């Protein structure tokens, strides 16, 4: 018999990292999501540091420099119908547009997840009451609902934020409720109930972590919708008021220039388009990265 003189290496046990760590690692294999995240980062930095980065004053009009073409000296992206620097206004406009995209979705995420967890976990009558009330909101197309609510509340930034939040709450509740209902039936919840732990502890330890992921992905997909709706509200005069720079509003005021300077008029729309596409692709990337199977 041959003597076993090979040095068996001691098995190296890799310490397993947390779930989100694994998701992040998976995300590295999604080039589109990485590029989108990069674009969003640039846009956010440009908006955040606009006062320092912008080449001009966003409110300084000049009758002589109206509707300068793209690439003019001193105005890299041209000027608008009042001769204000487009690049500057787009950077400043990004602040409001991104706020209008992120804030309503974030607040709807918080409110909606809570309501959805309650409805899904308790089930029965509570579920019925919450879901049927939200169905009333759900019955309207979201654009119509946003216009109706902010029309009723009056124009202004905070009112459009409230209106958009109200538009997204029912959608997020639906997702949170259905995921909670699914998770609630799994055996590990029964096992936790067998351990005699309270409902609050079960929701906190066992349900929340498993519901948050899918709802988060869904909410990321809503960011672009929110931005587009917000721009729509501003376009209709229900959101931000001029001369405040905001992409949707800029699109509206530049409407008259669509025939003689179409590229300038399309610029804010292009930014809305790029940002929402980037949000969507990032959401898609996160979705597939989170899909860690056994």
């Amino acid at each position, binding site marked *: 018999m041959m003597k076993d003189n090979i040095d068996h290496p001691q098995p190296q046990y890799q310490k*397993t990292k947390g*779930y989100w760590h694994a998701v992040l690692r998976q995300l590295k294999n999604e080039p589109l999501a990485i590029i989108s995240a990069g674009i969003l980062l640039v846009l956010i930095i440009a908006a955040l540091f606009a006062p320092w980065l912008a080449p001009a004053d966003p409110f300084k009009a000049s009758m002589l420099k109206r509707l300068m073409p793209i690439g003019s000296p001193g105005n890299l992206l041209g000027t608008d119908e009042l001769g204000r620097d487009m690049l500057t206004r787009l950077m400043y406009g990004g602040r409001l547009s991104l706020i209008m995209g992120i804030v309503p979705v974030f607040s709807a995420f918080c409110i909606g997840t809570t309501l959805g967890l309650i409805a899904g976990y308790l089930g029965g009558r509570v579920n019925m009451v919450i879901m049927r009330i939200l169905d009333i909101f759900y019955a309207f197309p979201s654009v119509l609902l946003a216009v109706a609510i902010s029309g009723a509340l009056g124009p202004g930034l905070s009112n459009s934020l409230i209106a958009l939040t109200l538009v997204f709450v029912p959608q997020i509740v639906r997702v949170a409720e259905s995921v909670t209902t699914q998770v609630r039936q799994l055996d*590990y919840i*029964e*096992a936790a109930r*067998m351990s*005699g732990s309270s409902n609050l502890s079960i929701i906190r*330890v066992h349900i929340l972590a498993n519901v948050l992921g899918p709802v988060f992905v869904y909410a990321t997909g809503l960011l672009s919708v929110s931005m587009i709706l917000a721009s729509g509200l501003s376009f209709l005069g229900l959101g931000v008021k001029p001369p405040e720079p905001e992409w949707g509003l800029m699109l509206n005021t530049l409407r008259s220039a669509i025939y003689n300077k179409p590229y300038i008029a399309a610029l804010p729309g292009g930014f809305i388009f790029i940002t929402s596409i980037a949000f969507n692709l990032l959401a898609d990337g996160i979705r597939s990265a989170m899909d860690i*199977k*056994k």
Partner: protein
Amino acid sequence: MMEHTNTFLNSEDRGGPAQPLLLVKDLKKYFPVRNGLFSREKKFVHAVDNVSFSVAKGKTLGIVGESGCGKSTTAKLIARLINPDSGKMVFDGDGVVEYGGIALKDFRKNLQMVFQDSFASLNPRLTIEQTIAYGPTVHGVSKLDASKQAKDLLERVGLEPEQFANRYPHELSGGQRQRVNIARALAYQPRLIILDEAVAALDKSVQAQVLNLLQELKRERQLTYLFISHDLHVVHYMSDEVMVMYLGQVVEKGPVDLIFNNPAHPYTKALLSAIPSMDPGKKTLKPPLEGDPPNPINPPSGCRFQDRCPVVKELCRNATPELKGVGDTSDHIVACHLAEERHI
């Protein structure tokens, strides 16, 4: 300190060895069926209908029957994961959830369950150690003690704590996950463990390992098992007593050898003849039973097995058979009008 971690939840053996650990009497659960929004008529699925039995301390009671016969519902009723419509349960001499008896929280410390789906019964976001330690911390054991105990339990069920404690369920195989489920059930120092098809999803070799682990643990910790399975080989191997269920009722119960060698109920006979033979020359050509079990919404009056019974008599269609002792033994009981005449 050590003493504390080992006995923190255990309630002592009070009634002595002769006292059955669990006594179930007339357990009943009907699930309402809605048939349409405006329908006034209420119908019920007779899921578990007047089930009574007892489990002796340190024994294993196997529960067998085809799917839909109420095995799992019985398990969930016992664990109070669903509330029974009526019926009584006595745990080691104490009435469960009744005045002067044992409270639900205390009862649950004595009883744990291992489920069939090893993946669905583990929270995917908790590490193995967190999963096992969760229950004890709920009951006020310190995090440090619970984690130490979790590691000991992992070691006991054959999983190297260093390697597995910080892993997530999706990184484990089915057999390993089921070992984790067993470790979690043991974390409470329970006296009764309900194994609901606990090995059904595992392949044969892993099944054997897990079954042997269960047998060792039973001896070591004086556990009592309620072993629910549709696999008769496994039930034969594990059980001291076997209970056969059909359509929400107990049709036969007795010591494992008597049930397997000398079944009294025609349904039990049919079940046993469905076990594939080890001899390839022996082939079953005819199905042992024809048809499906009747609709549990409207079970037939009289004997519930009448429509499929090969030896049905007029009496079976009119009168519901009671559970009666077979021959002169009182531990082998059967619910069949014809059992007596054929045995005597």
